[in-house]
């Protein structure tokens, strides 16, 4: 079982990627793995797209990254691509080993319940779209959904697990997972209607 420190170390670069995308910073991110290194350029919430960038994305989600750094981006992106498309092209077909799977399971089980912000996701086939809708639907619950519950599929359904993991990673990095706000506040009109629809579901 990996320690919390190990999990944090191995996934910190994904938090950085998320932050850079959501805050639309202009940064060049450098990643180094065991026998591999790669670079991603990001600006205005977009990703510089080319074969190297897509390979880099696949690597940083599927393999341990031993070090990473960032610096301000000197020039604008030559061929910016919306990250949802870059993620689709890189994550679909991604392999995950057992160690990586454990790391993700542990990390996502620590997250608070979330609502899922709807968006036009990516070029999903119908099976993946159904899994995305499953996550979205679970997130409509007043108490939100725990990602660990969504990822908790039977051991024999590895294909299903990977399908869900790719959706979670994409939603996470695009800022579509919103922690449930537990504060007591006066319910707005929309909140009242939503609560009523939830009760009658």
């Amino acid at each position, binding site marked *: 079982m990996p320690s919390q420190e190990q999990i944090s170390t191995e996934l910190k670069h994904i938090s950085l990627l998320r932050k850079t995308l959501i805050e639309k910073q202009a940064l060049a991110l450098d990643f180094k793995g065991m026998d591999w290194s790669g670079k991603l350029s990001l600006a205005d919430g977009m990703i510089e797209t080319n074969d190297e960038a897509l390979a880099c994305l696949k690597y940083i989600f599927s393999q341990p990254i031993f070090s990473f750094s960032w610096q301000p981006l000197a020039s604008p992106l030559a061929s910016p691509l919306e990250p949802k498309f870059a993620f689709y092209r890189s994550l679909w077909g991604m392999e995950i080993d057992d160690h990586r799977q454990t790391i993700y399971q542990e990390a996502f089980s620590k997250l608070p319940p*979330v609502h899922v912000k*709807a968006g*036009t996701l990516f070029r999903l086939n119908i099976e993946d779209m159904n899994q995305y809708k499953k996550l979205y639907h679970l997130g*409509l619950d007043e108490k939100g959904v725990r990602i660990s519950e969504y990822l908790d599929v039977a051991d024999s359904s590895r294909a299903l697990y990977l399908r869900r993991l790719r959706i979670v990673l994409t939603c*996470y990095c695009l800022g579509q997972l919103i922690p449930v*706000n537990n504060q007591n506040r006066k319910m707005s009109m929309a909140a*009242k*209607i939503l609560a009523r*629809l939830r009760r009658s579901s």
Partner: protein
Amino acid sequence: MAIAKIIVSGPFGSGKTTLIKHVSDEQFSGKDVPTTGALAHLKSMTTVGLDFGILNVDDDLDVHLFGTPGQSRFNFMWNILSKGALGGVLLVDTASDRALAEAQEMIKTWGSLENFPLVIGATKQDVPEAVTLDALTEILDSKNTPMFSVDARKREDNRMLVMALLQEILLAEQGENEMDVLDL
């Protein structure tokens, strides 16, 4: 008693009547009459006037769901109906070129309204001729509008669309600056 409005729109035959039926406690259907003219071969009966449903939330709040007639000659009603509405659901038959062209015009009209959140329900995605969600996004120029494939015959899909609209409104109210909470 406060009244909130939600608009359900979409081209002819997109499933508006069904959606309102599945979400409302009380439904008052517009008058269904035989379809005439060029659209008659597509659907035998169509709604004229309004589809209208009421969702009783509590003692203080009712939601009125207004379905706009699908035929383009009634387009003038959108601006009237949208006044004071929380937002709208746009249903689009993705297997019909005619419906796609009409939806393009509808979303332009709605896009011009301020503070009018919208979600799109893409129907008939199981039909081989249907355009993909990506293509629909391009056609409607709606990359920032939430979009779901839905089966208009399924109660759960219809309710989810309305719930999605409401959740989008709420999440926008909440703000999203809780970055650290979700750091891995």
